[in-house]
């Protein structure tokens, strides 16, 4: 526990590692998007077919809960997936503690979540993670196509939120050890986004646009 609690590790994770993480995440993401669009340009049919109006309609229907038939067919999945995904994007940005860090470093801050909202939301994200894991184990259809990486993705998210939550209340492990773990998992998650299937964070918009355009050309809707 000595190393995990050490100030040296904290300073590293809090200092250079943050820079590395954000640079890898941002540059990697831009690179991934850039290469995908470049590849799409080489194909004759992709870009000329993109119908922006249909794509935006499709985003709208798929980004609101129960906005599409597929969401309505699986209410529990929809509930958890929306709580989970909105949580994973918005809680880190609007958390008071994170804002304080930004303020400490760069003297900038913005609107923050009330503490109870953040707590409840985090608990739901954690439950969502457990739900996804349970689904991967107990639903035969999903189990058949599940690979180890799928579990790894969910566990990274789960640990990030769990350690963050526990660190906030200073339960289980000493505060600094838990905090170090929390920062570590968060950084692993951000770094993993450009390199793994977590790219669905931004590939969503491309694949959705393609299908929406195709559906529009058949005069049907894809939600």
């Amino acid at each position, binding site marked *: 526990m000595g190393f995990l609690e050490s100030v040296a590790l904290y300073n590293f994770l809090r200092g250079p590692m943050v820079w590395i993480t954000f640079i890898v995440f941002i540059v990697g993401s831009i690179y991934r998007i850039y290469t*995908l*669009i470049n*590849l*799409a340009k*080489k*194909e004759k049919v*992709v870009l000329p077919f993109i119908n922006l109006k249909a794509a935006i309609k*499709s985003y709208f229907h*798929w980004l609101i809960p129960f906005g599409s*038939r*597929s969401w309505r*067919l*699986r209410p529990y*999945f929809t509930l958890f997936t929306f709580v989970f995904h909105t949580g994973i994007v918005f809680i880190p940005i609007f958390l008071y503690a994170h804002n304080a860090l930004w303020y400490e470093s760069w003297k900038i801050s913005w609107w923050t979540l009330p503490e109870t909202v953040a707590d409840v939301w985090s608990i739901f994200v954690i439950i969502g993670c457990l739900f996804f894991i349970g689904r991967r184990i107990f*639903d*035969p*259809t*999903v*189990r*058949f*196509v*599940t*690979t180890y990486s*799928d579990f790894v*993705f969910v566990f990274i998210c789960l640990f990030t939120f769990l350690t963050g939550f526990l660190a906030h209340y200073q339960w289980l492990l000493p505060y600094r050890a838990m905090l170090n773990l929390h920062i570590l998992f968060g950084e692993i998650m951000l770094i993993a986004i450009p390199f793994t*299937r977590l*790219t*669905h964070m931004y*590939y*969503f918009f*491309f*694949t*959705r*646009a*393609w*299908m*929406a355009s*195709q*559906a529009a050309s058949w005069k*049907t809707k*894809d*939600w």
Partner: protein
Amino acid sequence: MAIKPEVSEEKEVYVSPYFPEYVRPKIEDPGLDETIKRITPEKIEKAYQAVFGKETARIKAIVETCIHCGLCAEACQWYLSNDRDPTYAPVAKVKMTVWELMKRKGKVEPSLVYDIARIAFTECNICHRCSLYCPFGLDITFIIGLVRRFCFLLGVVPQRMFEMNQAFMATLNQVWMSQSDYIDTLFWREEEGMYELKNLRIPMDIEGVEVIWYPLAAEPKAGVYHIDRIAKIFQVAGVKWTMLTINDSWDSSNMPMFIRDFFTMQRIVRGLYDNAARLRAKKLVLTE
């Protein structure tokens, strides 16, 4: 009184050597059974490189985005009508075909190609429903189409589909109908229709018309009455229309699409458009 279901005879089952969950009744199809004896791992790898070797945006986006959530399963009629058997889910079909090929980089044994061909040809209707249920709108059908292309390049195609394709290769229609047969049929239907509608004509190869109608090959062959019905409709509606007999490109069904034989697909479509341009027709009407 409860009806006692008769216990059917134990059917021979086929269990995939790669996926123990993939259990199906044994089928005999020379198009699959015989052709996998002829292919070698080198040929398979070559076919793999031809279809999946070049990185393209669509394949990349689809394979790298799928998060294995299984929502597409609810869309698939194969999945729903087989008691929600996991191996019938669209994502499972992709797993057993493309992921497996990509994982092994095309270095696979012919026995896996048999499984792949069976999945891609006989357990998917390429209907696109799964893409409409996928949260990411991944074009799963496109991927299955590529798998079919991969199998076609190796010649591992169910016999009936391949025979139909051969009909198109040879005659550009799916029923081996010759040009003289076709013209004869049109004259016959014109004669039959005349009894019901005065001065009924089935115009052939008229230039500068408004509409050119391309039937399905099954219509002159088996559903001949469709032709005079359409002729009556056009005549009563007062449309200037024509059918085409100057060459073999008159069948609008594009069955090679189902095995992704791009060359024959192109010959058919190009033939239809060229003929329409030759007769300066303004609209193409196809039988659906």
